[in-house]
């Protein structure tokens, strides 16, 4: 059993890392986005392997179903600059910076964690650690209600902001008059002239 899970884990990790590598190396932006989606999928599968079904499903729902679509839309609606050089002269500098940042982010985890694998939970009377949904729901409306509300307000603000921008855009756009409107306009202009 363990061996099987190890093998699956290895494969999935290879998928995630390989896909992530492809994201940064392929030239075509759309291909990069598709590789990114593959990577997201791999992560979701890893969550499933950890028996965190809810998180896995949310990963799929949010990242694959929503965010990647957003990315694709954004790419398609903007001009593509294909054929730019991938490696600049100072690629090593950026690599160093990236490594440094990664180290900064990773160091606390590295030092602060006791690297003991948790004992596999036995069948008898174990607390439901990861059956999650209900606990998560309760947590959101009790313990973390403030965080939840703040996140909600933030999202609402973002939504309203998007709508406002869209409305501005629409009012600025040249309106094409239909035939009836044009006729009405002509009539009104004539009326205005005759008054003058």
């Amino acid at each position: 059993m363990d061996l099987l899970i190890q093998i699956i884990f290895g494969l999935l990790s290879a998928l995630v890392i390989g896909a992530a590598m492809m994201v940064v190396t392929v030239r075509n932006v759309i291909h990069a986005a598709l590789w990114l989606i593959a990577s997201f999928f791999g992560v979701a599968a890893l969550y499933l392997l950890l028996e965190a079904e809810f998180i896995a499903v949310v990963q799929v729902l949010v990242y694959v179903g929503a965010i990647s679509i957003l990315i694709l839309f954004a790419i398609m609606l903007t001009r593509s600059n294909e054929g730019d050089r991938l490696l600049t002269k100072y690629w090593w500098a950026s690599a160093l910076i990236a490594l440094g940042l990664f180290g900064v982010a990773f160091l606390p985890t590295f030092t602060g964690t006791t690297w003991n694998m948790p004992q596999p939970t036995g069948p008898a009377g174990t607390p439901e650690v990861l059956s999650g949904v209900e606990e998560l729901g309760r947590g959101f409306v009790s313990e973390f209600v403030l965080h939840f509300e703040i996140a909600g307000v933030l999202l609402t603000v973002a939504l309203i902001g998007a709508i406002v921008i869209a409305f501005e855009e629409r009012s600025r756009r040249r309106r094409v008059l239909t035939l009836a409107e044009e006729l009405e306009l002509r009539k009104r202009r004539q009326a205005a002239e005759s008054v003058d």
Partner: protein
Amino acid sequence: MLKTEELQINIGPQHPSTHGVFRMIVTVDGETITDLKPVFGYLHRNHEQIAEVNTYLQNMPYTDRLDYFNSMANNHAYALAVEKLVGIEVPERAEYLRVLMVELTRILNHAGALGFLINDMGAWQTQLAFGMREREKILDLFESASGARLMCNYFRFGGVARDLPPDFMPRLKDLLIAMPAFVDEMERLLRENEILLQRSENIGILPKEVAISYSVTGPMLRASGVPYDIRKAEPYSIYDRFDFDVPIGAVGDVYDRILVRIEEMRQSKRIIEQIIQQLPDAQGGHINPKARQNVRPPAGDVYARVETPKGELGFYLVSDGSLKPYRYKVRAPSFINLTPLGDMCRGYKVADVVVILGSIDIVMGEVDR
């Protein structure tokens, strides 16, 4: 900031909903149409030139091919033109038969046109199938009378080709039993359907003034609110004997065109009922026995017009005294009703184009000739 560019899209000549080989060069800004240029001529068949090398009677079957939905109405216009040119009298019974056929044509054309229009809106052919069912019944009648379903070639100078077969009238009466049910059903499917209302209300408005200046005719013009019907304005044949109403629209949008067509089917049914009443008393046979079919009209010219289901169909004939017309010109309603398409579509969405085009009810055979 987001910016949209003007984009040119070619709809047609190969496109599922252009009613034949018809092309529209659509300039869109986002989804809104800023310009639309209809391009036609892909189905040009040299109709008028062919007619000038044929004798007068030989042109009769060619007129069937103009608007192949309403071959009877086309025949009527042409027969009227030649009769006017030569001076042929038409017996009363023949006139009744003619009007009967033409009014049946009107019903079948509107049934089909509404079906195709709803098809263009994306329905899965149900309304079309219902319309086609009634159309088939009428075509059966045409077939029993004239011998063909579409290319009827039924009219002759001075009458019609042959009298009605004995089983025609019972079948016609049966058909008239079904007709109100069919029209009511069509109305129930179309009139209050919210989806259809959204797709048709205030779409493709053609204001009265514009319609007149484009010399649009037929249901299109009447939907724009102009009560102009040649059957009333200049009654030809025996249309002054019948009692019928002229439906007009209030706004001139696609919805009004649907309503006007539905009502015209009802009015046609009224006329047919009156014909059935008056036909037994009609004098004369199905054709004037003195009328020669191989006519040699005196030199001169003539213009005759009828109200086909699509609008005013006129034939302008110039005779030089020979067996063949010197000049033969068709005023095709589909063609002239199509000209305001560009103006009508401006300011609407791309998806509305096909609906507006469908509401004009064109037949490419008549547009391109």
